[in-house]
């Protein structure tokens, strides 16, 4: 790239400019995957910040054993809305919607996804669903108070606005299905010449596996939510024991979707990490095939383990044994990935820049989340920690320390490519360090609390749990401070920072081979791929 071009890459060029329309409609009606990706990014990340605010309020209430900050009803609404926002509005649509859309078509050498208009429609469905959920907070008998799991019988009986919230989640599920459908077709049909399955970047591989889960598991969520609506509006009684129904069947249906859904959350994160680690270790990825294959293995095996959420619900011992066994099986492909990342690092020339720091913390936090998951997956130990803060700690390690940190890693890794400018390195590292420390102080304390018997979803607790709860709340403040520093620095950089250049990190995947920011059609002419995604012999040092 010539230095003249290097002088002015910024949000003025590339896909930011060349389009027929102008103003807001050039965004919200755009079918360009990059613009849709940014729409998803702004909306999902916006909801992440809302969710964080709610999480901090929960922690504030839990700072002291008998807080007078709020009543039980408000607390129930808070953790419900926090969970719904984080799960359905941030982490599930976030990674495929934002970074999948931004990066995946470029990584496979395509001009766009297979169905660009459907892609836009997905985003609109997401926004409509989000609107319905927001409406449910401020109308009727107040926000839902069931927990994000909408368990019957309570969800069928409570007078709060569950119907509307469920309808919103249903709509978002539809959006997720269409994204999955679009991505599978795109990856099958639009790979550039020479982009064989064996040369697919691992982020794209992870999206491919994710897309199958989105496609096949989400309809089960759809029917489950529709059944809640039927219970509430028609009185079908299918989950009502007094009329022959069985609430356990609701739990089965719910987790048939919602366990695979945790892989919708984490798989793309694993893909991000698989792309970042080799670039910053300046070494080809170790075990490419196994990482790609393990994504598919996770997607497949992960659909058979849902029962581990129900060990205490009254299943047969045989069922408990089988689900427990299968849960241990899924740990294997996850471990394969961790070992391969660590092997990639071995004797690499590691540069600890912000994306890498977030990726490395992903490995550690995800491993803690995964191993504590085995404690929950083993029936005997689960009986003790079920429905305690141990569970809350565990899933935050996976969903926040894992998927969330990967999302932030992706922000630092890829956003400069699309905005054309980059953030300052030092504040990014300070932000990361605070987040990392705060995160562990917060959730490790909660796991210990859970082991001691502190139940989840309680607004008051016994005084003996007070000290660690105080520590956890302080941790949440450190975490929030780090988040603020990270954000201010990132966004100031993206709009006013130094030009990023075409290939700031020395990556070898296709997105780094085109100008920054990419043009609307991505490639001037369709690329012909001649080497693998982690073949660094042809990219110079950054």
């Amino acid at each position, binding site marked *: 790239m010539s230095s003249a071009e290097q002088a002015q890459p910024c949000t003025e060029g590339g896909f930011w400019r060349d389009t027929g329309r102008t103003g807001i409609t050039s965004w919200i009606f755009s079918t360009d995957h990059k613009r849709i990706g940014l729409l998803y990014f702004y909306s999902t990340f916006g909801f992440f910040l809302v969710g964080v605010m709610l999480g901090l309020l929960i922690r504030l209430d839990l700072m002291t054993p008998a807080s007078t900050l709020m009543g039980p009803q408000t607390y129930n609404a808070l953790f419900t809305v926090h969970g719904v926002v984080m799960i359905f509005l941030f982490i599930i649509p976030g990674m495929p919607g934002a970074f999948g859309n931004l990066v995946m078509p470029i990584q496979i050498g395509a001009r766009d996804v297979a169905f660009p208009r459907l892609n836009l429609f997905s985003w609109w469905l997401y926004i409509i669903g989000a609107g319905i959920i927001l409406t449910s907070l401020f109308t009727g008998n107040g926000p839902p108070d069931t927990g994000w799991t909408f368990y019957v019988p309570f969800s069928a009986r409570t007078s709060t606005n569950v119907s509307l919230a469920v309808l919103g989640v249903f709509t978002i599920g539809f959006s997720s299905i269409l994204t999955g459908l679009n991505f599978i*077709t795109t990856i099958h049909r639009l790979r550039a010449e020479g982009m064989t399955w064996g040369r697919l970047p691992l982020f794209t591989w992870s999206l491919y596996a994710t897309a199958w889960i989105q496609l096949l598991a*989400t309809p*089960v969520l759809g*029917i489950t939510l529709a059944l809640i609506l*039927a219970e509430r509006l028609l009185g079908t009684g299918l989950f009502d024991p007094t009329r*022959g129904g069985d609430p356990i069947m609701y739990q089965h249906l719910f987790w048939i979707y919602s366990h695979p859904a945790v892989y919708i959350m984490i798989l793309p994160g694993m893909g991000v990490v698989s792309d970042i680690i080799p670039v910053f270790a300046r070494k080809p990825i170790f075990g490419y095939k196994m990482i790609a294959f393990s994504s598919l293995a996770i997607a497949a095996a992960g659909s058979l383990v849902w029962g581990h959420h129900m060990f205490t619900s009254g299943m047969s011992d045989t069922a408990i044994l089988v689900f427990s066994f299968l849960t241990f099986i899924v740990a294997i492909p996850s471990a394969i990935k961790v070992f391969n990342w660590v092997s990639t690092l071995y004797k690499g020339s590691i540069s600890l820049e912000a994306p890498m720091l977030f990726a490395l913390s992903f490995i550690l936090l995800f491993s803690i989340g995964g191993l504590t998951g085995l404690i929950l997956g083993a029936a005997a130990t689960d009986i003790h920690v079920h429905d305690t803060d141990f569970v809350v700690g565990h899933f935050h390690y996976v969903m926040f320390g894992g998927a969330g940190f990967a999302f932030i890693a992706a922000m630092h890794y890829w956003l400069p490519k699309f905005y054309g400018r980059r953030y300052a390195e030092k504040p990014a590292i300070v932000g990361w360090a605070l987040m990392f420390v705060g995160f562990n102080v917060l959730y490790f304390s909660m796991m210990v609390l859970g082991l001691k018997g502190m139940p989840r979803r309680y607004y008051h607790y016994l005084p003996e749990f007070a000290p660690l709860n105080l520590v956890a709340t302080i941790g949440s403040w450190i975490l929030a401070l780090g988040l603020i520093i990270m954000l201010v620095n990132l966004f100031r950089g993206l709009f006013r920072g130094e030009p990023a250049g075409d290939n700031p990190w020395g990556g070898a995947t296709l997105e780094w081979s085109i100008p920054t920011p990419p043009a609307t059609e991505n490639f001037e002419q369709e690329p012909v791929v001649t080497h693998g995604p982690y073949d660094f012999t042809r990219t110079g040092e950054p």
Partner: protein
Amino acid sequence: MSRHRDDTGAKLGMWLFLFTELFLFGGLFLLYAVYLSRYPREFAAAGREMHVVFGTANTAILITSSMLAATAVSAIQRDERRRVLWSLGGTVLCAAIFLFNKYLEWSAEISHGFYPNSPRLAAGPPGESVFFSLYYLTVGLHGLHVLIGGTLLIWVAVRVRRGVVHSGDYVLLENGALYWHLVDLIWIFIFPLYYLIL
């Protein structure tokens, strides 16, 4: 921006969508299986209240409609526009008759006091109420699909009439027909489960 055309891709997308539909209904079939094994006698008793004549007629109608949809696809390949339109019209007509039959059937059942949360079912054994709730949900969801499929085919017919869909570019019609076959296929499972085997 030059739109590139990829019929194979479009069909792949449709097939993927059909899988999601199977899983959507799968949830209801799963409940059916579990509750049937729990309440075999109540299900049998409730099943006797079903109108097999209506069910059989509707099965015949849907199979005919599927055949007509397939005829439309083979006719468009030979550019026989009139035949395409007649076939699609026939398919949509079948859909309408199907729904009308359903209306008659449901009216009869409701007038006998069989509907979710009805006093008659509340007084009877719990298994029967489960059966009827499942029946109404499954058949209702299927009916909704008949409605969507019929609307879709009307839209396709309009495109055929306007000449947008023709022998050189008919993936839209193919996908519409595929969807219709799925609607038919799901009924082929519903019919024996609710009308015949109990």
